[in-house]
């Protein structure tokens, strides 16, 4: 229209595609390097020479193949699941501060873990300790998984389905508070559970084995395929809920599918690694800032970004005070918090 003057020249479609391609290559490199760094980081810290020496010895190579490799790959998968889940949550709620733990999944997983820990502490008086340890590990994973899903289901029931976004969010808050209070109550009664719960809340990649990897990899592949197919609904939601509905979308169904996808991704991740903080929040942010695009791209790239973030956070958590380890959730919280502070500062500068 003649009245509007065009000032800036438009970026071409090719320029945007090539921007995303370059970003994808960088992410790929970051992930590959992260896996390599994860392998060479052991009790001696980040040490290629120690890694080389380990490879020569039999116990050393067994250690790398059975512990360090699955742990590193597992960190990548947990990060990918959280990144994907966060990207779905932020698109679904049209809010850049939404994260995977929003709908009661975190509190549900926490409660599941606490219940198992308390039961194990109680059972420890009657059966052998090794049995208890085994039950504790397997039980912890499944209880946290079921707890995370159960928390979301409770939220859905309280919100009477996914018909209204605001009701869904409020129900999520209520479930979070409620289940959190029950966990606290149990830990007051059973102090043993408190210690285990703390470790769970901080997040750790220490227990990831090959079984966990197979499970998470299968879940990630399925969820990524589903997410790509439903990405168009998230794109439509950027126009607002009414506009999306006017395009012929059944919003209640769309929301329900997306809620189920994000809670499945979250449950898979937290049941294996605990409540790793900030990865699900920050990964989609970084993608949107560096290489924005429609959700078909955003979801996959956020998963890759989450993988890269948690890989490197895991390396840092193991290298920083080697041979001791930090819980990886502490590292992600510091990095994520730092990123948000930096973002805040950038915005402040831009405004003034």
């Amino acid at each position: 229209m003649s009245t509007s003057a065009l000032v800036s020249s438009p970026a071409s479609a090719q320029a945007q595609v090539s921007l995303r391609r370059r970003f994808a290559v960088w992410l790929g490199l970051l992930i590959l390097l992260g896996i390599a760094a994860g392998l060479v980081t052991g009790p001696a810290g980040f040490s290629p020479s120690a890694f080389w020496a380990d490879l020569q010895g039999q116990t050393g190579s067994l250690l790398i193949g059975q512990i360090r490799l699955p742990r590193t790959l597992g960190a990548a998968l947990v990060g990918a699941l959280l990144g994907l889940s966060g990207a779905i949550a932020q698109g679904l709620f049209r809010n850049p501060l939404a994260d995977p733990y929003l709908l009661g999944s975190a509190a549900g997983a926490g409660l599941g873990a606490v219940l198992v820990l308390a039961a194990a502490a109680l059972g420890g008086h009657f059966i052998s300790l090794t049995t208890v340890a085994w039950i504790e590990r397997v039980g912890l994973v499944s209880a946290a998984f079921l707890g995370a899903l159960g928390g979301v289901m409770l939220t859905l029931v309280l919100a009477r389905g996914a018909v209204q976004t605001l009701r869904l969010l409020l129900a999520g808050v209520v479930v979070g508070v409620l289940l959190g209070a029950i966990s606290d109550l149990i830990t007051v009664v059973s102090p043993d559970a408190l210690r285990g719960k703390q470790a769970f809340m901080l997040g750790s990649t220490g227990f990831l084995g090959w079984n966990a990897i197979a499970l998470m990899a299968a879940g990630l592949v399925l969820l990524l395929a589903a997410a790509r197919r439903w990405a168009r609904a998230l794109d439509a939601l950027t126009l607002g809920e009414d506009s999306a509905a006017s395009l012929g979308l059944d919003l209640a169904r769309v929301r329900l599918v997306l809620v189920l996808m994000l809670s499945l991704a979250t449950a898979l991740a937290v049941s294996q690694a605990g409540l790793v903080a900030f990865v699900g929040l920050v990964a989609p942010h970084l993608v949107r800032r560096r290489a924005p695009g429609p959700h078909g791209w955003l979801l996959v790239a956020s998963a890759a970004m989450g993988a890269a973030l948690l890989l490197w956070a895991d390396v840092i958590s193991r290298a920083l005070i080697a041979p001791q380890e930090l819980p990886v959730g502490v590292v992600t919280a510091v990095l994520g918090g730092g990123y948000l502070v930096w973002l805040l500062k950038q915005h402040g500068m831009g405004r003034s």
Partner: protein
Amino acid sequence: MTLTAHTSVLHAEHLRVRLGAREVLQDVGLAIGPGWTALVGPNGAGKSTLLRALAALQPLAGGRVTLGAADGPDLHALPAPERARRLAWLAQQGEVSGELTVRETVELGRIAHLGLLGTPGAADVAAVEQAMALTECSPWQHRRLHELSGGERQRVLLARVLATEAPLLLLDEPTTHLDAPHQVTLARLFRRLAHEARPRRAVLTVLHDLPIALQADQLIVLASGRLQASGSPRDPALQAALVRVFGGAIRIETDSRGQPRVALLLDPA
């Protein structure tokens, strides 16, 4: 250009909408014909609610909306995708989040035809191209929405609506927050869509700006949730109703070509 009941594209009778305890629409009945129709009335009259009810975005407490004439299919009972192909709706405020480009946004209009999972074909690309051409968005189709001015964004969102190829467009205050030149361009576009474009579209716009609204083929006047008048802007009875609902704050004059014009009355006579 004039409206007769038997050529209506959308028909509504005894519409009632309740929001909480408040009855926002009370027994509204109307027929939207081809051409460009403007829905006007003071703030709080229920204009947006009526448009949402007509788009089946607002549940009804009573009455029904039918496609075509009174005996047509019940719009609220149609499956959502089918409805989206019959009519398109544009939100009042172009609330947009996310980082879609102009073209990606316009392509969303094709969901009505593709569903969520379909792959766009040649017809979809053509519809998108035509929608962007009509609204003159094509030159900057690869820019992102948040980089655009309010007027540009409004045109993009309108293009999204056009891309549905729905024969009936329901637009909620599409000219609000735009300066006079942009308002005029949009008004010209409504006219073109209603009378020249192929295929023609019936356009129903909620409008705040009476000067623009008086350019429409038909006016519907709403106040306090009730239909006050409908008909041609040149109809003296309709003009009288308009002056009445605006509390005597306006005067309607007729220029040398018989076209009505509105003037604001700051000093009561």
